[in-house]
């Protein structure tokens, strides 16, 4: 579910003008970046491990259909029901129908970006089914009636002061002491009874294990287990690309995921669920449903975005992105923010609505450097820029400007004359080595200086050297 209520430029302007947002984003992303660096340093073979992780995902994507069928057969054999959805609407309808058939009045939801992608919170509300978000950050977001701004820390944009005010307004027995520990305790009190009383537990899946039919969740809080064990029904919504062939493959990916996301060797709670409660089991749901969601993934595989299907949703790309660190996640407008979001959002929401995201990138390559599955994010973003140009989606001023440039560039004498004039003019604008005010580009030089160009153009210097 997206929030394209204004243009990207307006959203980014609003984010940059928010004095609190940058502090909040910097506190969490900065910590995450530092912790990842320590974790990677302590794993000497991390670079080779990234190659292997990419190879595992590429293998799965190449044989995706067969692995999905294997997973389906094993999940059914374990007693789960498997459903397939091509679109977000189909996925939501399946989930709501299962909830209604179970007579569910309330669901406990463990954080899932796929759930956000298909608009499940909205669909549950429309169906009149109560929803308890059990991840602490998602709980904050639910109370604030906002959207997640990060895939690992959805409430990254909130400061402790804002969270404190929110809990005091909404919790039945809020904290008295102004500490983060006291706020977390307030949420613990508030959520526990709601989790234990839910009729249905809904989760995503970090991995689907083809050869056992198990689904894997990872959380630091243990909220997935508390949301999924007590209810009568467990519903899983998962993207079809989450498949791995076997447990040892999942183990390799888990080593990469935790280090890249939070800098830990492993997330505190890693659980593999294989079907519903067994005979004699003292807890666990009576029924387990797994909804496998396409929503554009098969198209990505066919249309040059197969590498993006490697993504394991660790969030490292956004933690290291200079643009994300300035504007936070909401300005991106889609379900997924940051570099991976800028690649995915045009798939889910259309390039016309989101083409500016591909330009919200300096192409410094930092995202690709830290990606645990080596997704060439800058290349994929450039692909969207090219497609946007080919499809005529760029604004008229841009097309006209580039058209003029191309016309001149095809006339070398005119081009050299023009660049010569520009160089001489720019020489006059700066007394030192820098230009601090540039006509027609005042916005650019308002916050930084432009280096003064060389006294002569390259071609002038080249000709002079040849004459010697």
């Amino acid at each position, binding site marked *: 579910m997206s929030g394209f209520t204004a243009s990207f430029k307006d959203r980014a302007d609003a984010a940059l003008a928010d004095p609190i947002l940058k502090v909040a984003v910097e506190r969490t992303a900065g910590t995450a970046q530092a912790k990842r660096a320590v974790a990677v340093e302590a794993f000497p073979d991390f670079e080779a*491990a990234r190659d292997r992780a990419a190879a595992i995902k590429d293998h799965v994507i190449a044989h*995706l259909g067969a692995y999905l069928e294997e997973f389906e057969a094993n999940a059914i054999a374990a007693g789960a029901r498997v459903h397939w959805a091509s679109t977000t609407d189909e996925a939501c309808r399946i989930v709501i129908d299962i909830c209604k058939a179970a007579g569910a009045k309330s669901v406990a939801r463990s954080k899932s970006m796929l759930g956000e992608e298909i608009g499940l919170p909205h669909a549950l509300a429309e169906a009149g089914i109560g929803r308890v978000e059990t991840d602490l950050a998602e709980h904050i977001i639910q109370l604030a009636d906002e959207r997640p701004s990060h895939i690992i820390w959805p409430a990254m944009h909130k400061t402790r002061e804002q969270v404190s005010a929110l809990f005091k307004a909404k919790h039945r027995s809020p904290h008295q002491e102004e500490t983060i520990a006291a706020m977390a305790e307030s949420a613990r009190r508030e959520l526990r009874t709601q989790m234990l009383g839910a009729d249905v537990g809904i989760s995503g899946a970090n991995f689907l294990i083809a050869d056992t039919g198990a689904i894997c969740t990872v959380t630091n*809080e243990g*909220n997935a287990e*508390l949301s999924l064990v007590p209810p009568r029904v467990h519903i899983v919504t998962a993207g079809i690309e989450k498949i791995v062939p076997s447990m040892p493959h999942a183990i390799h990916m888990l080593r990469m995921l935790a280090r890249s996301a939070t800098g830990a060797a492993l997330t*505190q709670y890693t659980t593999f669920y294989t079907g519903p409660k067994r005979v004699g089991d003292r807890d666990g749901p009576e029924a387990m449903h797994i909804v496998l969601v396409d929503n554009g993934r098969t198209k990505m595989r066919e249309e040059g975005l197969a590498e993006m299907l490697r993504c394991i949703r660790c969030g490292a790309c956004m933690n290291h992105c200079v643009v994300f660190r300035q504007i936070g996640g909401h300005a991106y407008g889609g379900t997924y923010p940051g570099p991976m979001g800028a690649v995915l959002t045009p798939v889910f929401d259309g390039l016309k609505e989101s083409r500016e995201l591909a330009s919200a990138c300096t192409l410094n390559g930092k995202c690709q450097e830290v990606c645990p599955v080596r997704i060439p994010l800058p290349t994929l973003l450039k692909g969207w820029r090219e497609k946007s140009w080919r499809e005529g989606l760029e604004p008229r001023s841009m097309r006209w400007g580039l058209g003029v440039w191309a016309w001149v560039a095809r006339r070398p004498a005119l081009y050299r004359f023009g660049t010569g004039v520009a160089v001489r003019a720019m020489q006059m604008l700066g007394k030192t080595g820098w230009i601090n005010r540039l006509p027609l580009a005042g916005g650019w030089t308002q916050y930084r200086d432009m280096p003064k160009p060389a006294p002569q153009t390259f071609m002038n210097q080249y000709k002079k050297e040849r004459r010697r």
Partner: protein
Amino acid sequence: MSARDAILSRLKGAAPDKAEADALLVAPERPMVDEDALEAEFLARLALPSVSASHDAIDTIADLPAAVARYLDAQGEARSLCLPPDPRLMACDWRGFTLHDVAAPDEAAALAIARRGIAESGSLVFETSPQAPMLPNFLTLHHIVLLAVRDIAAHLEAAPLVGAQPRAHYWITGVSGTTDIEGSYVRGAHGPRFLHVILLREQ
């Protein structure tokens, strides 16, 4: 056409070659672990801030109630315990304890037996069964775990069961924690705030 058929028709391709999938796992990169000092390696990971579990050691399982009492007394908790119906635990002498096998929503302490300990991460490995419910381990404030030293393995590859899978197979690597408010780490987000491992050194 059903959604299933539509999706699978878009994914037509050769069936995966098992050998190719296996080849992806030859000599996987793994964190360094001294296999001659597994207990020390495991305990070192257990002490990391991200795991932050305490530990004790006993020589025989008969010493378990005394070790649990020692821990609860030190924590200022009553000798009240949620005990799963595992015959190895039921055989211990729990005189002086108040025992129950269903966890209360505000359960203070629960005991469980880990099938394996993993040295590379300080993880404890569990499975569900009629003798091993899952919920108490996530509801309780103090999670107390018995782990035999001989069950400590170097790497996570030793964690899964081969063959038929239980309803849930899970790894616990620390306490319920959150960094959701400004990236600050807080223990006891929803579940256990304390994890205490009792090593059984019996051969």
